[in-house]
């Protein structure tokens, strides 16, 4: 039994995503799932193992190796009444699907004056750390945040992944669902609940503290929590705010936290230039939190280079726990 008397179970991030999809497909027969190798093979990362057997080839569809087809078909299916979940095996290949996503899916609802809806989810395994080099390791969420009409979600834990994916599937707008590949094997206890829905646009304070706010999402959350635990021994209390949904962004929670602590670091794995951390930083400095800032708003992000293949270099371009600690000392004036 867990909190509130609810039953809890342990599962990985990948299993949580599978469970969210399967539950929604059982609940609503309009939900379908398409992508490359997601059927018989069970997905490149094993996320959809068993779904083909349960739901059959009509609802769990393997597609040709064409991301343009996947995104285009999903958009069309969504407009005509289905609720497709589409998987782009590597977020890097959304480049090929961009016209369908940016010019079609994101625009249709607006251009038809709200008469058309596009209830689709584009699941995008993303991020570095698997030794997959520059074309299979990128974090491109900022591109999609920049396009009005798209929602962007980036969960950091199995529980968040499940609750947010279910909310995304039930949403009537196109949702870009960013799954960092390194998170797939992370386990945690999550409520055993078919109604576990986490509304889009609601941040989660993963740790409370009064000295420094760190705003981060996805895989960086775990690193930040580790560092927060370490620096707590030195009397520095870090508050970790995970927005979970990047668009729409829960600005209020972020701003209130910064007003409380007066110091903030924004961290993302994606490259620094043009990254979403910069957007969050700008929102903070524009807000009423400005007058409470007692240190410059820091960004910590990937280096502005393509992800290297060499594993040591690959690690070096992403913010490390050491980098996070150093940034905390900097804003704390230590």
């Amino acid at each position, binding site marked *: 039994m867990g909190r509130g008397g609810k039953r809890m179970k342990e599962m990985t991030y990948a299993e949580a995503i599978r469970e969210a999809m399967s539950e929604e497909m059982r609940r609503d027969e309009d939900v379908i799932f398409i992508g490359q190798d997601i059927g018989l093979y069970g997905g490149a990362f094993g996320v959809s193992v068993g779904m083909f057997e349960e739901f059959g080839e009509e609802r769990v569809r393997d597609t040709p190796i064409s991301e343009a087809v996947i995104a285009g078909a999903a958009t069309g299916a969504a407009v005509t009444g289905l609720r497709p979940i589409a998987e782009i095996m590597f977020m890097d290949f959304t480049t090929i699907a961009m016209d369908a996503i940016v010019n079609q899916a994101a625009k249709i609802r607006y251009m038809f004056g709200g008469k058309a809806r596009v209830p689709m989810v584009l699941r995008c395994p993303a991020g570095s750390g698997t030794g997959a080099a520059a074309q299979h390791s990128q974090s491109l969420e900022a591109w999609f945040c920049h396009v009005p009409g798209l929602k962007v979600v980036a969960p950091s834990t199995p529980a968040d992944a499940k609750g947010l994916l279910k909310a995304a599937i039930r949403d009537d707008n196109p949702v870009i669902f960013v799954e960092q590949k390194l998170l797939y094997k992370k386990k945690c206890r999550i409520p055993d609940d078919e109604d576990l829905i986490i509304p889009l646009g609601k941040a989660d304070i993963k740790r409370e503290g009064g000295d420094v706010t760190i705003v981060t999402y996805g895989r960086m959350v775990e690193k930040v929590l580790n560092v927060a635990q370490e620096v707590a021994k030195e009397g520095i209390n870090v508050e970790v705010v995970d927005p979970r949904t990047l668009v729409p962004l829960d600005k209020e929670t972020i701003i209130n936290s910064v007003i409380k602590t*007066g110091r903030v670091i924004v961290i993302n794995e994606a490259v620094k230039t043009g990254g979403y951390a910069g957007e969050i930083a700008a929102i903070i400095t524009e807000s009423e939190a*400005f*007058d*409470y*800032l*007692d*240190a410059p708003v820091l960004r910590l992000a990937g280096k502005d280079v393509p992800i290297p293949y060499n594993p040591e270099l690959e690690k070096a371009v992403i913010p490390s726990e050491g980098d996070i600690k150093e940034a905390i000392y900097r804003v704390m*004036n230590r």
Partner: protein
Amino acid sequence: MATKVDFSSYPRVRATPAARRAARERGIKLSEIKGTGLEGRIQLYDVENLKSIEKTKKRATPLAKSIAKIHGVDIEVLEGSGFRNKVLKADVEKHLAEERQRAKGKEEKCKIIPLTPMRRVIAQRISNSYFTAPSFTLNIDVDMTKTKALREEVKELILIELGNKITFTDIIIMAVSKALMRYPILNGSLIEEGILLHEYVNMGLAVGLDEGLLVPVIRDTHRKSLREILSDTKDVIERAKNNRLLPHEMEGSTFTISNLGMFGITHFTPIINQPNSAILGVNTITDKMVVLGGEPRVRPIMTLSLTIDHRIVDGAPGAKFLRYIKELLENPIQLLI
């Protein structure tokens, strides 16, 4: 790559927004603070921990300065009404006018007491009530024999249990709350949309202090026992006297009682505490000769003075209400029912 900047050559002060805000709020000049942050940056910590805050020079407009100089006024003692408390010409002139008043007062053996913020609020609220509500006062004599006996009877018990002495006010609050539930119009407020009838009684209790008057509110007295009313009343009076009441504890009354009995007052015309529709003045209890069944008797008599807002309540309902309170106090056993 960022190039190293020599900040010492910059004329502006380096300070964080938080430090600037704190300095602004405290009226401290940043240029007088030494920063402990990076490159001498002033942090919030530096402002908050400023050991000896040197009095900063008052800022004043040139015109204000020269007028002050002509009249020999010290700018430092003036309160500035301009941007960030800058002293303006008007501030100097106001000061001069006050000086003249004071001088005049001295000549005529008078003095002027400046209004305290509390006095100012009282003045404003009382005139607001007096000039908006056409009111009248009803008086009734109450035979307090049984209430007095009741008080004597429970006094010891309550003293042992609560360590407090029960007062007539406590019993009167209880009786009035009961009466208000029967005559809700007396417990109403005139608002834009009509007459707001409250389904509960929040009793305001006027507490006189040397420096003015406070009206703390005891909530939900209609469903409180005597002991609850008694401890709540003691508590708010105590804290009112020590200036420990929170603002919300003085808001939301639906009716008010003002007791001047301890001064021997026999009747008076209290002024309504808006937005209440009435106020009950409680007077002293005096032994009086009354005629009962054709026989002269000495009885403890107390007058109750009820001031009513005639916009909401007419004479007859007001009189019925007052008569009911009299009934309750003359037969306090009814309070149990």
